[in-house]
């Protein structure tokens, strides 16, 4: 495997001359580790959703790119993310999802933490029956908290702590979708599912960005959402995706529909948009529902997609929700063979990263360009430090 930095120059060319990221970015563990820091840890990456910890005290352990993390809804109802490790000897605190009724107790020596991360008890740390010691400053030994931000119910984290505040880093997208900044109601158990795909997480993003593949991979759309009904969404260095001008509401057997979100402009009567929040969260918005797909990189060639659907009101038709979930499951399942096929293609040693249709692949190229920019930033910082 390569120990030389990959060449990014061709990726950063204008779209009509650019090549995509080279094979190493999809198959090489060394590059995967480099991207882990430069692309995922240094930016606001999606970890889970608020609906994963719906009630006060809910605690869910999750392994994120090898790191043991813990999502918690604290006593004030705020979602927080901590490293799931005791500050004493590094023991894993919570093994299975559970409710924290009072405090998080380490199973090893019973050091206890509040749900806001304070170290609140260190039993016998100064000897039997002596629970304090001058050498143990609890104020400095609380749970290591990971910077987090919740938007569209997605829990975004910035592991490095160095990214701009979320609202600044994603100001343009939050402004574009300001009308959807309102309560989103997760549809429940029937409105979430998971796909495991044998591909690098970036291929799922690249496929999601573009409408170019729709007529061939999603032929069911051709009858009412033709290629010419779609438009590119391109914000260089920030986000990209596509929109449709002909969204059709799902109807039940009695022609019933989901309730709309309040206060949407008329445009949304028949429009829908699908945007990637760089790096790894795929969002879709419609007049009557939204969805979030959090891509979890499990390795260079494996990704788990966690898909969640949300509605405008807490109560919606069970049958209609089931139909909507099934419909989206079918659409996303149709994409599996192309993302897995592109992954296998990356083992063709003479593949040159490919080319982009200047007319049709703009949003995808912008993602490649952004990934390359993050790697260049990371490499420059390392070089400056040497």
């Amino acid at each position, binding site marked *: 495997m390569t120990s030389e930095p990959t060449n990014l120059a061709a990726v950063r060319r204008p779209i009509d001359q650019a090549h995509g990221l080279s094979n190493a970015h999809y198959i090489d563990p060394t590059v995967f580790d480099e991207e882990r820091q430069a692309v995922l840890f240094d930016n606001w990456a999606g970890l889970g959703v608020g609906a994963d910890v719906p009630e006060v005290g809910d605690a869910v352990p999750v392994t994120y790119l090898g790191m043991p993390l813990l999502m918690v809804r*604290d006593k*004030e109802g*705020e*979602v*927080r993310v901590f490293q799931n490790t005791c500050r004493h000897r590094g023991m894993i605190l919570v093994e299975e999802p559970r409710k924290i*009724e*009072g*405090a998080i*107790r380490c199973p090893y020596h*019973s050091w*206890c933490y*509040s749900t*806001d*991360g*304070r170290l*609140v*008890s260190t*039993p*016998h740390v100064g*000897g*039997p*029956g*002596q*629970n*304090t010691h001058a050498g143990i400053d*609890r*104020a400095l030994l*609380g749970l290591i*908290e*990971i*910077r*987090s*931000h919740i938007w569209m119910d997605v829990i975004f984290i910035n592991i490095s702590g160095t990214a701009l*505040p*979320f609202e600044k880093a994603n100001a343009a997208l939050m402004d574009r979708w300001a009308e959807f900044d309102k309560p989103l109601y997760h549809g429940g158990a029937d409105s979430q599912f998971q796909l495991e795909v044998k591909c690098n997480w970036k291929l799922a993003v690249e496929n999601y960005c573009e409408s170019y593949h729709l007529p061939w991979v999603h032929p069911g759309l051709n009858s009412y959402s033709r290629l010419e009904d779609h438009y590119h969404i391109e914000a260089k260095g920030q986000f990209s995706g596509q929109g449709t001008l002909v969204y059709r509401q799902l109807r039940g057997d009695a022609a019933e529909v989901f309730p709309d979100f309040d206060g949407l402009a008329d445009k949304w009567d028949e429009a829908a948009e699908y945007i990637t929040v760089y790096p790894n969260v795929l969002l879709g918005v419609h007049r009557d529902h939204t969805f979030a797909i959090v891509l979890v990189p499990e390795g260079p060639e494996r990704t788990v997609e966690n898909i969640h659907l949300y509605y405008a009101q807490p109560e919606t038709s069970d049958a209609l929700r089931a139909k909507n979930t099934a419909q989206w499951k079918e659409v996303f399942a149709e994409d599996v063979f192309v993302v897995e096929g592109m992954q296998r293609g990356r083992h063709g040693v003479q593949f040159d990263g490919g080319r982009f249709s200047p007319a049709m692949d703009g949003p995808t190229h912008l993602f490649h360009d952004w990934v390359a920019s993050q790697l260049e930033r990371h490499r420059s910082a390392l070089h400056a430090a040497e």
Partner: protein
Amino acid sequence: MKPLDDALRAAHVAGDTDALIRLYAQAAEGADTSDSAAFYLTHAYVFALETGDARADGLREKLVAVGREEPLDPARPPLR
């Protein structure tokens, strides 16, 4: 002390936290040294703290009063 030891052992086996809190507090009251009392009181407190039991605050106050614990730090806002 043996019946208490037996009861504690049984409570641990059963995972009966309510009994553990009560029995460790009882053991503290019957302890013959301040270190033993504080040891047992600590156990009662930790189980109460973990489960959000209403007895937790009072047990901590007792430990603070005998210099075996310290008051809680203020709450921490989320790191955003």
